[in-house]
């Protein structure tokens, strides 16, 4: 039975997987892809999990495909980097049960460290890329991807971007079609990529892609749309919707499958128009392929490659019409900040006084790098805090300058990130004798992406109780001799422990353990208050960067914004005058 729902692209992918009879799905949280698995988890027919990282998730899904199940992998764009090794191999191996790879890219880096264009993964690994433009297509293409994967014995990429993942549209939803799990079949020539087998698999992969190229020419998701004038637009993904709106009279080649490219359709469009624009976000992937065919087109010289596209940028590209500049006057920025009551705040406040080199990682706590805490020096990728700290240590061990040599190195990593990619780095630091301090900010959840479970929480994505792996025990088992567990809301104790850990000449681990106050509100207290007679205006509390504390320039006293305060007491603990007090209602 058909039903209309208002779904985000992420939810539509989940709906499509469900309708296609998907059995297994795995992922690691990452914006803008997180909601795909959260939506999958609402369908009881699909086994789904938060894997510890994307490489693991990919291998789980590949294994499920080998077992004959329809299987879905999803991650943000950089997640596929982590999973790249099994991903490339899986193109050779192909699928048994349908194997669908959803990547959600983030042009404009709304919540990411780069704006890499994952369509290149399709080209590099030789797998087809479907590029939906809206929620309906996210659903339809996910279903199609399962069929193509089984029909052509290949993994299939569905490439979303933030504006398809996090945009909602009206989607016609259908019932689930049950597809029985085929079961496992031993086939070493296919599933075991020794060079002797892989050579044949590569040749077979090239043939599979040739067959897919034929499909790309004839499928209705690639189509030429008739226009009124001599201008043609080739577009995929959400860029198609912007172009369609800004230039409705143009001819279009809409690419639902952008790789392999339907060259006959490109030539058909070229025969109808005098001028072709290629409109795609980020890199000139389609443009280069069109130019390689010897067909002239206008691409990145007009259509920006840095930051996401929008209707205004396309109006400028097509018609040289720039939006009118509006002078709003000076508007102070409002970047994200650590929340009131954040358990990371006291740790950063202490570290900013101890002044070691602080290598950071990926999570809410990366915001500790911002003023006024300024307590982070580096952030590279998931897990890099520990390994980069180790590398800096080894470099500084080999320098003459005593001041450099004496520098202390502290790695700061979250609990979920620690399980994702910190374990190997910590083992490496112990194995290669690195006297670094690793602070594990254990707030008991994957906070940044909206509170997902992980191996340290004792719960699964499907809501089941499971073994809770203890961070401190893991650190000890990996050979760290100096391990502390502290409550970051005990400022004094945390400071003493950090000082001691940093002073050691051996690897040390400090677990700052307390639940994210947004996830667990059970310990919220009534708002604190500042006695203005006792406050001397020193601004030490303001230096915590807590949104609930501000400074009144007229009275030159600090004040607490009651509606924001969670009663964590850190400001009271750092106030040298004892001017900040718990509510008497507590």
């Amino acid at each position, binding site marked *: 039975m058909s039903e209309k729902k208002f779904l985000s692209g992420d939810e539509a992918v989940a709906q499509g997987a469900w309708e296609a009879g998907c059995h297994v799905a795995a992922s690691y949280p990452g914006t803008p892809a997180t909601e795909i698995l959260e939506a999958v988890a609402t369908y009881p027919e699909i086994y789904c999990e938060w894997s510890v990282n994307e490489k693991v998730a990919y291998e789980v899904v590949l294994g499920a495909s080998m077992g004959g199940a329809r299987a879905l992998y999803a991650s943000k764009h950089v997640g596929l980097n982590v999973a790249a090794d099994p991903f490339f191999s899986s193109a050779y191996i192909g699928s048994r049960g349908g194997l669908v790879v959803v990547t959600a890219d983030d042009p404009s880096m709304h919540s990411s460290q780069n704006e890499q264009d994952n369509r290149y993964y399709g080209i590099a690994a030789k797998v087809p890329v479907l590029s939906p433009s*809206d929620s309906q297509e996210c659903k339809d293409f996910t279903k199609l991807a399962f069929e193509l994967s089984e029909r052509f014995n290949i993994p299939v990429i569905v490439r979303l971007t*933030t504006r398809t993942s996090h945009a909602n549209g009206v989607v016609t939803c259908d019932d689930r079609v049950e597809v029985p799990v085929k079961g496992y079949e031993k086939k070493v020539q296919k599933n075991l990529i020794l060079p002797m087998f892989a050579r044949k698999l590569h040749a077979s992969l090239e043939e599979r892609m040739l067959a897919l190229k034929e499909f790309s020419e004839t499928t209705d998701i690639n189509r030429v749309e008739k226009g009124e004038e001599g201008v043609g637009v080739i577009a995929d993904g959400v860029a198609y*919707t912007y172009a369609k709106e800004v230039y409705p009279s143009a001819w279009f080649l809409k690419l639902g499958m952008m790789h392999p490219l339907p060259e006959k359709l490109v030539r058909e469009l070229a025969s109808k128009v005098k001028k072709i624009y290629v409109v795609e976000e980020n890199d000139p992937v389609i443009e280069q392929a069109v130019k390689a065919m010897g067909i002239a087109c206008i691409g990145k010289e007009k259509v920006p490659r840095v930051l996401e596209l929008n209707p205004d940028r396309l109006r400028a590209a097509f018609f040289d019409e720039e939006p009118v500049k509006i002078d709003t006057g000076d508007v102070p920025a409002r970047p994200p900040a650590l*929340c009131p009551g954040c358990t990371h705040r006291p740790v950063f406040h202490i570290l900013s006084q101890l002044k070691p080199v602080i290598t950071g990682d990926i999570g809410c706590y990366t915001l500790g790098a911002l003023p006024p805490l300024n307590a982070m020096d580096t952030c590279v990728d998931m897990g890099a805090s520990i390994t980069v700290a180790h590398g800096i240590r080894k470099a500084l061990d080999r320098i003459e300058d005593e001041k450099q040599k004496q520098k202390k190195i502290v790695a700061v990593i979250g609990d979920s990130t620690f399980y994702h990619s910190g374990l190997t780095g910590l083992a490496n630091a112990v194995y290669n004798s690195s006297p670094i301090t690793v602070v594990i900010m254990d707030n008991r959840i994957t906070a940044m992406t909206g509170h997902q479970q992980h191996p340290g929480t004792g719960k699964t994505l499907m809501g089941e109780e499971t073994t809770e792996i203890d961070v401190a025990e893991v650190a000890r088992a990996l050979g760290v001799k100096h391990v502390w567990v502290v409550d970051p809301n005990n400022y004094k104790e945390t400071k003493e422990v950090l000082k001691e850990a940093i002073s050691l000449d051996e690897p040390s681990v400090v677990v700052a353990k307390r639940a994210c106050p947004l996830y667990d509100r059970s310990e919220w207290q009534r708002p604190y208050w500042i006695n203005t007679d006792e406050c001397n205006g020193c601004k030490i509390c303001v230096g915590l960067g807590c949104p609930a504390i501000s400074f009144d320039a007229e009275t030159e006293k600090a004040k607490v914004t009651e509606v924001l305060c969670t009663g964590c007491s850190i400001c009271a603990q750092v106030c040298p005058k004892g001017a900040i007090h718990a509510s008497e209602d507590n």
Partner: protein
Amino acid sequence: MPQKTTNIFVAGVGGQGIIKFSNLLCEVAMRAGLDVKKSEIHGMAQRGGSVTTHVRFGEKVYSPLIPQGGADFICSMEHLEAVRHIAFLNREQGRLIYDPYEIAPPEVYTAQRSYPKDIEERLAKLAPNRIALPAFENALKIGNSRAQNVVMLGALSSFLDFEQSLYEDVIRAGFKPKYVDINIKAFNLGKELASP
């Protein structure tokens, strides 16, 4: 000739219910049989940053984003955020509905600068058609400051052509039973406040 698309830009600060506001509005438009698109940026929204959504409905909507100068309405839950995104407003035909409620951005609460004091003067120039709607204050008055967004929705509804019953249905479906009554109240209050 296809019916014109209505563009509504929603702005505020993480935690103010901007996404919820947009979801309720989209649901109303969908139940009215229209094509609807919504786009939002919320990755870091919980961390107190600027949050915006684009809501568009009409006969057929392609782009999920509103062009600059294309918004028929900007609904802002915060004073400064109204100024920040004003370039999206259709200056001649569009209308700004904003809550003069102020939330300090980081530079302000860390005492590096003060909250701008001339926002009203700026808005007078930038948005000739505007309504100041103290939604937060009124939500607080009826007992739940978190209903600020629904007060705002009520205000917006008085300028849209949807049936009142559609909003009520959507509010009933969109909240836990114990929050339905307060939100219906908030909606009606917003509608009343915005009526001339």
